[in-house]
């Protein structure tokens, strides 16, 4: 009895890790960008292009890590576009982000047709060429740890590591301090000699890179190809997770895990024949998110200069 309860919990934990991973990467991207003062609504578009790039490169090259980095580069290019518009030209950052969502989706399909004989789906990558699964076979069959960690891809562990790295970077290094100061008081930072433009560029490009990783985590790990409906709103969920987590990496992580966990719960509950409609059960992750927000999280505030383009004071 206890056995089955525990193994069910283990199963839910396993599903949580799988579901949350793409969200974690993408929301980390959002954290980086917004803490430097640039709103990034375009996470969804960057995720889509990353998912496509990862699947395509993974198929043609066969090496998952090259594909993963390629996905990051693809996302980073869109990040560059966003930075170009927002930082250099002072664009309305929300508008630019929405534009990137359209462009990312459109260009991903466009390229897919070019490289895959007119199909909007990429071809499947064989299991061996996907991301590795480091802890496979490490734990004894049927044990709880095996249920959780069997078939978890390296992207999962990397994501958790990334949270740690980004947290350390932002709060324990002087680079992180500069980043945050640029997002809170760019004028003051500028007078102290910090190059606001350069830091914002880097932050926004990196946000694209991370969102690209998030997309690749879907097409190189969860499944083994890209199709147009793969990402379907996960970028926006990641955006919500970032806000939920109060623009901090550790908060974003918890929000993503909460969401993934709720999805795992939905899958778990779905196997029973309840009187309650499955549709209502499917609402759970979203309802839980709102309830937790109301009950436990409360007010959240963006970095002070978030969304305001920085204009250098003219000295002459």
């Amino acid at each position, binding site marked *: 009895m206890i056995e089955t309860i525990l193994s069910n919990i283990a199963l839910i934990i396993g599903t949580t890790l799988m579901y949350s991973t793409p969200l974690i990467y993408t929301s980390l991207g959002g954290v980086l960008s917004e803490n430097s003062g640039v709103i990034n609504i375009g996470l969804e578009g960057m995720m889509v292009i990353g998912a496509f790039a990862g699947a395509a490169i993974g198929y043609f090259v066969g090496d998952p890590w090259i594909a993963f980095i390629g996905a990051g580069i693809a996302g980073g290019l869109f990040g560059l*576009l966003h930075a170009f*518009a927002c930082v250099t*030209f*002072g*664009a*309305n*950052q*929300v*508008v*630019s982000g*929405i*534009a*990137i*969502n*359209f*462009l*990312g*989706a*459109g*260009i991903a*399909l*466009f390229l897919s*047709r*070019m490289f895959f004989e007119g199909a*909007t789906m990429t071809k499947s990558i064989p299991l061996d060429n996907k991301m590795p699964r480091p802890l496979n076979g490490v734990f004894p069959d049927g044990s709880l740890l095996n249920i959780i960690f069997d078939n978890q891809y390296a992207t999962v562990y990397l994501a958790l590591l990334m949270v740690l790295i980004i947290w350390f970077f932002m709060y324990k290094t002087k680079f992180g301090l500069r980043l945050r100061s640029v997002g809170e008081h760019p004028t003051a930072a500028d007078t102290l000699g910090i190059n606001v433009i350069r830091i914002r560029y880097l932050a926004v490009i990196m946000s694209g890179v991370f969102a690209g990783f998030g997309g690749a985590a879907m097409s190189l790990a969860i499944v083994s190809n890209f199709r147009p*409906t793969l990402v*379907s*709103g996960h970028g*926006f*969920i990641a*955006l*919500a997770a970032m*806000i*939920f987590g109060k623009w901090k990496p550790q908060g974003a992580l918890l929000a993503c895990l909460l969401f993934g966990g709720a999805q795992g719960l939905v899958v778990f509950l779905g196997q029973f024949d309840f009187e309650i*409609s499955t*549709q*209502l059960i*499917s*609402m759970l*992750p*979203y*309802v839980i*998110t*709102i309830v937790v*927000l*109301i009950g436990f*999280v*409360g*007010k*959240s505030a963006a970095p002070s200069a978030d969304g305001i383009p920085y204009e250098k004071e003219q000295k002459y």
Partner: protein
Amino acid sequence: MKVNFKNLRKSLYIFATEKTFGFTLISIFLGLVVGAIFLAVAGFNPFQAYWVMLRGIFAKPSYISYTIIRATPLILTGLSIAFAFKTGLFNIGAEGQFIIGSVAATAAGYFLHLPLLIHIPVVILSAILAAGIWGGLAGFFKAKFGVHEVISTIMLNWIALYFQNFLIYTNGFQKPGGETSHSIQSTANMMILKTWKQSESGREWLLQHPFWKDLLRTPINLGFIIAILMAILVWFILNKTALGYRLRAVGFNKFAAEYGGINVNKNMIISMFIAGALAGLAGALQVVGVSHKVTLIAAMEGYGFDGIAVALIANSNALGCILAGLLFGALKYGGTKIQMFPVKAPSEVINIVIGSIVFFISIPKLIKVILSRKTKKGGTK
């Protein structure tokens, strides 16, 4: 000759940079250019594609009608989001509010049996109310608990989607056959001349009069007029009423508004209520005028998300939403035509065009820079 050229460039510069409308036009032009580049790279003829699109929008009365029908919900969701922006809120929840509006409209349209003149207003009012509450809910969460409206509205979108499917599965609402709800009563139907044009005599007459046959084959309805009226109403509220003034003040600077004695919380809820009501109206009009029922949906249809782009193209200007909605409707409807012979281009090129247009609209400075260089060159000649 040379003098004319310089003047032309200068007036173009002024037109583009000082009049928002001109600037929007140039952004649209540049967006089309980017789309053309993509088409050319893929081996298609961009002129042919755009020509097909243009013909596909204007060449027949039914095409123009379809464009308008396509644009109507977008104008309203665009208004919803533009309104919210003006009051300092980001309403990504237009999609969910649209869904709630359409569900409420279907329920009121099916379960109630009222005479024609009363039924339609009742249906529309119930949709507006339901969707307004759905939007106001997000406003309430923000006002009372500090929950950011971006998160709450994204969540509410999904909840609305599952709610629609849930209702369709419920007995009484579900049409036997399982995938749709019952259709609304004919008294709730706003399609112009619907019963007549499907009757024997109607068909006879139409075969004799090709112009009307062409026009009436589309689900032409009064929705567009209502959308325009709404845009005017919203513009009026925002710019000419005390309520609008308060809402905009809150949007401009929450703290100053509070200091000035405005109840920020209450006004946030009112804002989201109105925004939700507008999006819900879009859903209601879609049901009453076009689809007459709701179906099981596997994914969001995008009216709300497209509305974000519409609001942004219109620079959150209520009247601008009409034009932006029409533009969007034209691009989306006309865009489908490039998939066929003779062009056979993929449909996502339209998304690239739309994305590019929105992108250029986001950076007024870029266009200023490009054009100012041009005038300088003209000047030194």
